[in-house]
């Protein structure tokens, strides 16, 4: 595998977020990490980026342990698009995109990447001089994806890219993720709670519950079993049912 977590355990103080989690993504694939709230999905990506306190296990990158500190990981070829979009609202769209590769000193390469991203996202091209604060949630998510791609990554880590978006926009985001994989041949690991949409575009899926991997395989194999139903419905308590109502 290109990027692989091997027996990773993460603890926030007394709370175990992940227990001996092993999962990964092969070159050119899209892999999904799914599970209910609090299952530890986002912690998986944070563990790769050095943003979570890993107490055991290691991350393999191109078959070698990944030991680089957070700020150097992007240079290794791994870009992270954090949850909640987190675009810089005081900067324009173009400036936001430039932030994704400001560490590069090659102006021609920067321009080439900018052209690629703007071609892939017509909406960003159209509004490139506007402030990011003037964009809708869906457009900001596209900007966050584009900014991640500006790093020219081999692997793109997406943390809940559809969180808080309208169903029609969710579909667009998934289409765009599939398009990135297809056109740029970027390997993608996506953490998602939106099972229905994500299973249509991935090659491999992992289901997490209470910090452990409870199932992995092709999307079809997951749909054939009742793992998802058990994991999601088994967790349904009084609080969550109120939310549904």
């Amino acid at each position: 595998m290109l990027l692989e977590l091997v027996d990773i355990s993460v603890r926030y103080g007394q709370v175990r977020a992940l227990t001996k989690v092993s999962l990964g993504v092969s070159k050119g694939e899209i892999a999904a990490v799914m599970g209910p709230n609090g299952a530890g999905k986002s912690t998986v990506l944070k563990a790769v980026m050095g943003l979570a306190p890993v107490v055991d296990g290691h991350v393999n990158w191109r078959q070698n342990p990944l030991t680089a500190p957070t700020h150097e990981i992007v240079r290794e070829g791994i870009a992270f698009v954090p949850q909640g979009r987190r675009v810089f609202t005081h900067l324009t769209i173009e400036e936001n995109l430039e932030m994704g590769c400001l560490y590069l000193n090659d102006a021609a390469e920067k321009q080439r990447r900018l052209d690629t991203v703007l071609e892939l996202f017509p909406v960003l091209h159209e509004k490139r001089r506007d402030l990011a604060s003037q964009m809708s949630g869906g457009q900001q998510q596209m900007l966050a994806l584009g900014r991640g791609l500006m790093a020219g990554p081999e692997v793109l880590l997406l943390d809940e890219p559809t969180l808080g978006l309208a169903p029609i926009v969710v579909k667009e985001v998934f289409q765009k993720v599939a398009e990135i994989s297809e056109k740029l041949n970027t390997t993608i690991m996506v953490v998602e709670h939106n099972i229905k949409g994500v299973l249509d575009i991935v090659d491999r899926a992992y289901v997490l519950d209470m910090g452990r991997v409870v199932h992995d395989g092709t999307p079809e194999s997951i749909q054939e079993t009742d793992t998802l139903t058990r994991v999601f419905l088994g967790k349904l308590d009084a609080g969550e049912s109120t939310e549904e109502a």
Partner: protein
Amino acid sequence: MSIATGAIRGLQEVARDPGSWWRRSKGSVELWANLIVLGWALVFMLWRGGGFAITVGSVFAIWAVLAVSLNLVVGYTGLLSVGHIGFFGIGAYAMAVLTSSASYEQLRTEAIPTFGWPFFAALPISVVLAGLVALVVGVAFNRFRDDIYVLVSFGFAVIAFTTFLSWRNLTRGAFGIHQVARPAIGPLVFDGELEFLALLLVFLGLVVLISWLIVTSSFGRVLTAIREDEEAIEVFGYRTTHYKLAIWVISAMMAGLAGALLASWSTFIDPNSFVLLESVLLVSIVILGGLASIWGSLLGALAFVMLEEGMRFVPFLPSEFIGQIRQMILGILLVLLMLFRPQGLVGRFKL
């Protein structure tokens, strides 16, 4: 650049249609803030005459250097430091100790070594010393953020003040240091108030220029990104701790410069100029003017100095209460500002 183009476009429009000025300006708080503060300062200076204008100008220049430098840390980078006054004090004491030529024979218990250096030899030492202390403090502070940052910087301000007060065989404690040297270049001695004001304005211009170059560079863009989302910018490959440390040290050096200028301007310093309250007032100036706005800091400093100096002339106020009333007014102003205009007079960002 965009401000200049905007201003030119605005002037062209007003030239075509003079009535448009009133329509445009009615809703612009920024414009009115500028007009009121600048107008108030101008009217007051014309009324009180040249001597007053020179004094106000000098006090303004020193506070403006402080405010602009603190804005780099608080406004642009988002690190709410209330310890800036410590670096101001370090610069001032370095200048005072190195250049004072006073003889303290009458007070042998409070005698300190005198070096009698010229101003321009002591100035770089003051600036570098503030920078070095900031480097050490900054390495320790780098892991903190937000409310914890306020607390640790508060701790630094307290330690700095206590050091100025207690290290008596260097600072003379509460007695203060007299006869701090005035600047001299060859035969040209800046002992007149007007000459000194000119020198202060040159230094202020330099600080504004350096700050402007910083905030408009890619370095400055990373700083503002740190303020918005430090974790996000770190995953894009920036070692944010280095950026934070760099701006912290640069800002402290500017504060050290302001301190050195204050010591030389007033020729006497004691720890009272570096109490925590002054630090809080300084943060208030930065917020009052506007976070992440150099012009805002200049305007905030001017408003503050005008408030401070201007209130001396309010006829019905007993002089012994002026200091307290001034602080109360500043407090009320800040509360009103946070309620109705949290981004400050000309700023764009909220705390």
